[in-house]
C-alpha cells in the first residue's frame, strides 16, 4: 500500500481522487461499469437530466473533426422521474459519488428538477448545465447571459444544501465573469468547459452534417482552449474548478491541475477507451510516487507564472 493521498476537495464535496466522468459521456453508468470499476472513480456525472423525458435531435448527431468530434445529441434523456425509478437502483449498488447534471429551459424547471432529486441520498452533488449549445427549443440561451445564470444559481441554491457545481460555457468573452457570479450567488464550484460551438458541412449536399446545424466540439482539439479557460478562472476568481476538455491521459490530468483544476472530468475519451479512467488513477499514483508528492491536491493551481 502506498500512502499517497489522491483525495481532493471541490469545496465541501470530497472525492477519493480527481477523476470524474463527464456528463453525457457515461450515460447513467451501466455500460461503462463493464470496463471500469466504478467504485474506484472519483465521481460520475449523469447525462443532463430534464424535468420531462427528451427525445433529443434526429440523426445525424455525431461528426468527427480533426482530433475532435462534434455532437448534437440535443439532451436526449429519460427525465428525472424515470431516472429516479429506473436508473438510480443500479447506481445505488456502487460506492461512487453520483453527481446529477441538470439541464432546463426555464429557471423554474431548474429549480423543480433540483427539488425532486434533492431527497435522493444517492445523489451527492448537482452540476447545473447552463451551457448546452445543442438545443433549439431551449428557451433562454442561459450560458451566454450572465444575469440568467446568476438567477438560476440563486434559485437552485435555495432548494438544495448539496454541493452545487455550475458547468460553464466556453463560448463567451470572459468565462471568469461567470465564475464570479457563481461565487457571488453561493455556488460551490464551476466545471469548465462544456463544448465549443462548431459546425461542419457536407460539400456535396451543401447541408450541415448535423441535423441541428451546430454541435459541440470536444476532444483533444479543444484542450488548449479549456486550459486557458481554467487558468483564467483560477487567476481571477477564488472558487474550486473542475477541469474538462480533451483529456486523453494522466499527463493531461496533471496539466489541468497545474492550471487550476481541483478535479477533472473525462468526456470523449470514454467513447474511445472506457478502461482509461480506472487506469489513470493508478498512473496518477505512480506520478505522485516518482515525484515525491504526498498529496495530489497540492498540484492544484501550482503554475509558476
Amino acid at each position, binding site marked *: 500500500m502506498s500512502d499517497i493521498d489522491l483525495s481532493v476537495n471541490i469545496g465541501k464535496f470530497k472525492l477519493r481522487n480527481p477523476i470524474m466522468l463527464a456528463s*453525457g*459521456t*457515461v*450515460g447513467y453508468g451501466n*455500460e*461503462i461499469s*463493464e*470496463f471500469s470499476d466504478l467504485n474506484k472513480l472519483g465521481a460520475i456525472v449523469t*447525462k443532463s437530466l430534464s424535468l420531462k*423525458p427528451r*427525445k*433529443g*435531435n*434526429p*440523426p*445525424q*448527431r*455525431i*461528426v*468527427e473533426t*480533426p*482530433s*475532435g*468530434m462534434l*455532437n448534437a*445529441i440535443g439532451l*436526449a434523456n429519460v427525465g428525472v422521474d424515470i431516472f429516479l425509478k429506473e436508473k438510480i437502483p443500479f447506481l445505488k449498488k456502487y460506492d461512487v459519488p453520483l453527481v446529477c447534471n441538470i439541464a432546463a429551459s426555464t429557471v423554474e424547471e431548474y429549480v423543480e428538477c433540483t427539488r425532486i432529486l434533492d431527497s435522493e441520498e444517492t445523489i451527492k452533488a448537482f452540476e447545473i448545465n447552463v451551457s448546452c449549445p445543442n438545443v433549439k427549443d431551449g428557451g433562454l440561451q442561459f450560458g451566454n447571459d450572465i444575469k440568467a445564470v446568476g438567477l438560476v444559481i440563486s434559485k437552485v441554491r435555495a432548494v438544495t444544501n448539496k454541493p452545487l457545481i455550475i458547468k460553464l460555457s466556453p463560448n463567451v468573452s470572459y468565462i471568469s465573469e461567470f465564475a464570479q457570479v457563481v461565487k457571488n450567488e453561493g455556488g460551490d464550484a464551476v466545471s469548465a468547459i462544456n463544448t465549443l460551438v462548431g459546425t461542419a458541412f457536407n460539400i456535396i449536399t451543401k447541408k450541415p452534417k448535423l441535423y441541428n446545424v451546430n454541435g459541440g466540439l470536444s*476532444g*483533444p*482539439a479543444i484542450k488548449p482552449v479549456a486550459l486557458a479557460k481554467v487558468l483564467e478562472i483560477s487567476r481571477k476568481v477564488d472558487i474550486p474548478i473542475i477541469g474538462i476538455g480533451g483529456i*486523453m491521459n494522466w499527463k493531461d490530468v496533471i496539466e489541468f491541475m497545474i492550471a487550476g483544476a481541483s478535479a477533472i472530468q473525462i468526456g*470523449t475519451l*470514454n*467513447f*474511445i*477507451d*472506457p*478502461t482509461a479512467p480506472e487506469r489513470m488513477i493508478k498512473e496518477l499514483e505512480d506520478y505522485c510516487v516518482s515525484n515525491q508528492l504526498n498529496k495530489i491536491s497540492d498540484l492544484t493551481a501550482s503554475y509558476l507564472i
Partner: protein
Amino acid sequence: MLIVNSPVVETIQIHENIFIQKILSPEIAHNSNPGQFLNIRVSETANPLLRRPFSICDVEGDNIFIMFNVMGEGTKILACKQPGSSVDILGPLGNGFNLDDDFEIAVIVAGGLGSAPFPYLTRKIGKSKKIISFVGGRSKNDLITYSMMNFLTSTDDGSEGFKGNVVKLLEENRDKLDKEKIKIFGCGPNAMLKSLKDFSIKYDYNCEISTESAMACGFGICQGCPIESTQNPDKYLLVCKDGPVFNVKDVNL
C-alpha cells in the same frame, strides 16, 4: 464486450477498393454472432480520434475477419496494416441476426458493401437451412460475392446479372420465396433498405436488416446513433445497442 489489442494476420485486397482483414482475436471470435459489429481503433494518435465500426464479416477458429472499403483516413490506415501490426478492438457489439425464428430458407439481400456480415451468417447457418442470396451493386466491379453461396446478382448498369436494383431482382424471383418458410436478411445502403422494407411489408415477409449510423462509442453511452422506432415515437432506438440488426417493422428508415 471486450477491448483487445489483436494482431493482424493478413490484409487482402479482394476488389479495387475493398479489403478483407484477418485478425487473431480468440476472445472475440468465440463470443460473437453474425450481425454483430466491432469498433476498431486504427491508431493511437488523436487523429483519427474515434473508433471505426465494422461488421463481423466472418469467424474461423480464433480468427475474425472484417471487410471494408477505403472511405477516408481511418480505413486507409487500416488497409495499410500488415502482419506484425495490430488493431485495438472493442466488441462484439450490438445484437446480431436472430436465427431462432421459425424459417427454413434464409434469403440474403446485400447491396454493395452490405455483403460484409453475410459470410459469417452463411457459415453459421451452414447446412441447417437452405440459403438463397441476392447480391446487388452499381456495376460489375461493385458486386461483392465473397464467401456467398447460391447467389443471383444485379447491377444498376446491367454490366452483370439482372439490370436494376437488388430488391427488384428479389421481386423478380418472388416465385422462389414461400412466405411461410423464408426469412429475409438485408444489409446495404439506406435507399436499398427502404425498398426492402416496403417489399417485405407489402408481401408480409419476416425480414431483419442491419442498419448503420454515425457513431462515437458503439456501446450505448454517447446517444450518437438514434434510429426512429415505429413502436414508440417518443424515444429513439440506438443503432449500436438496440441494433444494428432490427426487424424491418420496428424502425423507420
